[in-house]
């Protein structure tokens, strides 16, 4: 990661105004969004949007032709180009041929993408942004930090300073007054402008229409008052049919600002009369700028399903800490990372793709049903493919891919780590775990790993067999969690085997783009876990479960290694996470717990992979209730804890504050115990609470359950 980039993060996370504003916004957004979608089947709605946008992405040429034909028939002038330079030249030519001196703009990310304003200004044309947020950042000489709310990073005091300078009068920071100042200041600009420039939220091929949505009413003025209207539209905004606009009009305002509909929607088709009786000179520019290439890429085609609502920013635990400017100058947040990699260049995304912690929160809310985390992983993979794995990481992966050496080093670490151990925690670990910062203690490597302890466990005779996949953390740091899993399964009449040849699930390599290493890990594990015929392969680590159930297959597919896919599917079919299996066994009456226990309050932390990839959230809660606990839900129970595997090592300045927020939410429940299903989250949260000094126990659900098995 570049120094400049690291500095921008440092600056952002230490900007209390920014993190305060974004934090409050993201908390309110979640509640308001849910309210806006009340009574609506979101999955059905986004299914329809994904389908119609995906169709459009597959037929960009056809729909562009159709749009051009229909818009031209209505009298619009349509200009199509793949080149941003040509877009700028076209607009300037239209302006110069018509003696345009002043332009007013309504918000358009496409014009930001091609850096239109400085270009026109250099040619002597005055350009005024009229969206309040855009005008603020134009006055401040900044770039938008959010796709929907461009000035979200600024305080009312900063705005009042800017406006005071602009109107030459000392203004207070009274917001309604500031808005009035903007209205009064911009009104004459609207009235005198010769050209209005807008974007387009939707372009409808069947009718040749563009659809504009605003709340302030500026787009209505921009498209009505000046005699020339230029609309710049990225071709990903195309839809085929007129009826297709309905689902987008339903989802976009709800997802963007939690509104049922924006204050204004305009559907413009061909020129309409100006107030002097002349007809509008309407130009519509369909801009490609690598969108067709994106559509031709089997992985990235789905990114064209984006309707630019920015909900992926609003729910992102990282965005709400660092804001938009860390991401770059145009598109920000999760989808912004992907768009920057394409519309700008892959290289530009090198640093920002690393901001993604892979928690999956954005994927859950995306109205275009885009798998944003998966696409960011693909960017990582391609970057690694282009540039190779950095030296240090390569050294680590060569170790990880050699099970004996890796496990040998972990065992050595249990001894080497000893002098630093304080109670159950060490301040520093050897090797790649060495580079850690404050805010979290790390567990000591267990003196006796699970694989050794396992040999000493006496199991009853059982009719069914399950293979236990421990994963590195349970094996070498939390063997007691593994023992808990064994005792619960034994109680239900399942004998547990531990295939010795199992090794790292490959997630660390995969999440760093090193797919070859991950594939090596996958092959070793498939061999080990399918060697003996078992009914289940059980894991008590959701990240490992996701690897076994989904990612092995995906890694092979991404690399085009089809040979191992059938075996990977066989393993996936047998894989189950601990809580899902335990709940099933309880329901089947095979697993009985002590009755009438009153164990007090517990709060539950949803691990990202368990909740959002495996869709498991009720099972552990029901198990805990059955065991005799009273659930005390924490605020944002399913928000990432900031661990993200090696993320917490690479970006501790982001991981740290995410953890602190989680700890605060845990402590506020007053529950003496916090339960979770992921040893990685245990490591992060237990370490955080250890340094915090709070008397809250951090336990894996399996441990709490194992304590309540009926004698």
């Amino acid at each position: 990661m570049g120094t400049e980039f690291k500095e921008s993060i440092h600056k952002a996370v230490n900007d209390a105004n920014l993190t305060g504003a974004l934090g409050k916004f993201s908390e309110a957004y979640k509640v308001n969004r849910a309210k806006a979608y009340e009574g609506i089947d979101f999955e059905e709605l986004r299914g329809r949007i994904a389908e119609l946008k995906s169709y459009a992405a597959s037929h960009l040429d056809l729909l562009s032709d159709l749009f051009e034909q229909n818009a031209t028939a209505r009298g619009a002038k349509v200009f199509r180009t793949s080149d941003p330079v040509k877009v700028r030249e076209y607009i300037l030519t239209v302006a110069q041929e018509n003696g345009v001196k002043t332009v007013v703009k309504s918000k358009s990310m496409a014009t930001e993408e091609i850096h239109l304003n400085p270009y026109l200004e250099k040619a002597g044309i005055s350009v005024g942004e009229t969206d309040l947020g855009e005008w603020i950042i134009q006055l401040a000489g900044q770039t938008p930090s959010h796709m929907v709310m461009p000035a979200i990073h600024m305080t009312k005091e900063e705005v009042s300073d800017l406006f005071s300078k602009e109107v030459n009068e000392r203004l207070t920071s009274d917001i309604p007054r500031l808005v009035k100042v903007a209205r009064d200041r911009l009104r004459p600009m609207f009235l005198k402008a010769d050209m209005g420039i807008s974007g387009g939220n939707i372009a409808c091929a069947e009718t040749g229409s563009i659809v504009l949505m605003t709340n302030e009413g500026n787009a209505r003025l921009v498209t009505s008052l000046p005699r020339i209207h230029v609309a710049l539209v990225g071709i990903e905004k195309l839809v085929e049919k007129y009826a297709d606009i309905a689902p987008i009009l339903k989802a976009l305002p709800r997802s963007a600002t939690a509104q049922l509909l924006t204050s204004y929607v305009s559907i413009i088709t061909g020129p309409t009369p100006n107030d002097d009786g002349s007809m509008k000179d309407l130009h519509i520019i369909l801009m490609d700028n690598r969108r067709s290439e994106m559509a031709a890429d089997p992985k990235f085609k789905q990114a064209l399903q984006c309707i630019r609502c920015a909900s992926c920013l609003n729910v992102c635990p990282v965005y709400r800490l660092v804001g938009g400017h860390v991401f770059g100058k145009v598109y920000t947040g999760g989808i912004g990372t992907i768009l920057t990699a394409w519309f700008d260049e892959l290289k530009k995304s090198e640093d920002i793709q690393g901001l993604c912690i892979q928690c999956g929160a954005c994927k859950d809310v995306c109205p275009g049903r885009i798998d944003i985390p998966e696409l960011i992983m693909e960017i990582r993979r391609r970057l690694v493919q282009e540039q190779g794995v950095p030296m240090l990481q390569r050294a680590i992966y060569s170790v990880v891919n050699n099970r004996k050496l890796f496990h040998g080093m972990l065992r050595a670490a249990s001894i080497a780590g000893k002098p630093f151990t304080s109670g159950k925690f060490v301040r520093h670990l050897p090797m790649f775990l060495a580079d850690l910062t404050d805010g979290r203690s790390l567990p000591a490597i267990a003196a006796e790993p699970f694989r050794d302890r396992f040999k000493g466990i006496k199991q009853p005779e059982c009719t069914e067999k399950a293979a236990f996949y421990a994963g590195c953390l349970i094996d070498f740091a939390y063997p007691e969690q593994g023992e808990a899993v064994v005792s619960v399964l034994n109680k239900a009449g399942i004998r547990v085997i531990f295939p010795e040849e199992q090794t790292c699930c490959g997630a660390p390599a995969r999440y760093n783009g090193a797919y070859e290493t991950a594939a090596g890990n996958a092959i070793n594990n498939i061999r080990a876990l399918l060697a003996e015929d078992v009914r289940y392969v059980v894991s008590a680590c959701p990240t490992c479960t996701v690897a076994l159930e989904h990612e092995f297959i995906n890694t092979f597919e991404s690399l085009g290694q089809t040979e191992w896919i059938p075996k990977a599917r066989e393993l996936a079919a047998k894989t189950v996470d601990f809580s899902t299996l335990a709940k099933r066994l309880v329901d089947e009456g095979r697993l009985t717990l002590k009755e009438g226990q009153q164990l007090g309050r517990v709060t539950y932390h949803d691990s990202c992979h368990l909740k959002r990839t495996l869709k498991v959230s009720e099972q552990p809660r029901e198990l805990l209730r059955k065991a005799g606990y009273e659930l005390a839900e924490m605020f944002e129970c399913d928000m990432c804890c900031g661990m993200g595997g090696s993320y917490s090592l690479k970006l501790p300045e982001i991981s740290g504050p995410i953890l602190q927020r989680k700890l605060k939410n845990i402590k506020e429940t007053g529950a003496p115990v916090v339960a979770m299903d992921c040893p990685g989250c245990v490591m992060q949260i237990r370490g955080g609470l250890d340094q915090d000094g709070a008397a809250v126990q951090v336990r894996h659900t399996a441990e709490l359950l194992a304590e309540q098995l009926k004698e």
Partner: protein
Amino acid sequence: MYEQFKTRAEGVSAEVYRFGTKAGALDFIVGFLEREGIADEPQAHALWTECPFLDGIDRQTLAGVAGLKFEITRDLAADARFGISQMQWALADTGTLVQDSTAIDQRLVSSLPAIHIALVPTSGILPDMPALLTRLHPAQSGYIAMITGPSRTADIERVLTIGVHGPERLVIVFVDDLGGAN
């Protein structure tokens, strides 16, 4: 559907009234303009665009309302405090008004003045957007305008503020006997 519309529209700060007859609505509008200080001077006058509501109304009876004009120009609209126009449809599930706004006058009076008074036939209430899209097509209208509440922003510290570039008040007047205007 009227009740649902009213709830939704008021939820986004629109003011909603309903009258059985044109006469009732007209009385209300005249009273409203007078209460709000209509006068024949800039920033106080009202512009009323041609619309089915005005059919059959003797404009002489309105001559006593000083500052009420039926002539629309860009300059007059820029200086008007009130704009009055008729919207054709209302969408119950979002509290939205819809109009074929191809004629520029319709947009001038509903976007430049501080207060927009929108007349709507009660029969124009539709359940939702898909119902509208089957009735109003770009083939018939070059500029379809939808209005949901007054102009708003949250661009400064995400604080909702009403009245940016468009009207700061939207007064919706339903009229039952406006008939089959659609």
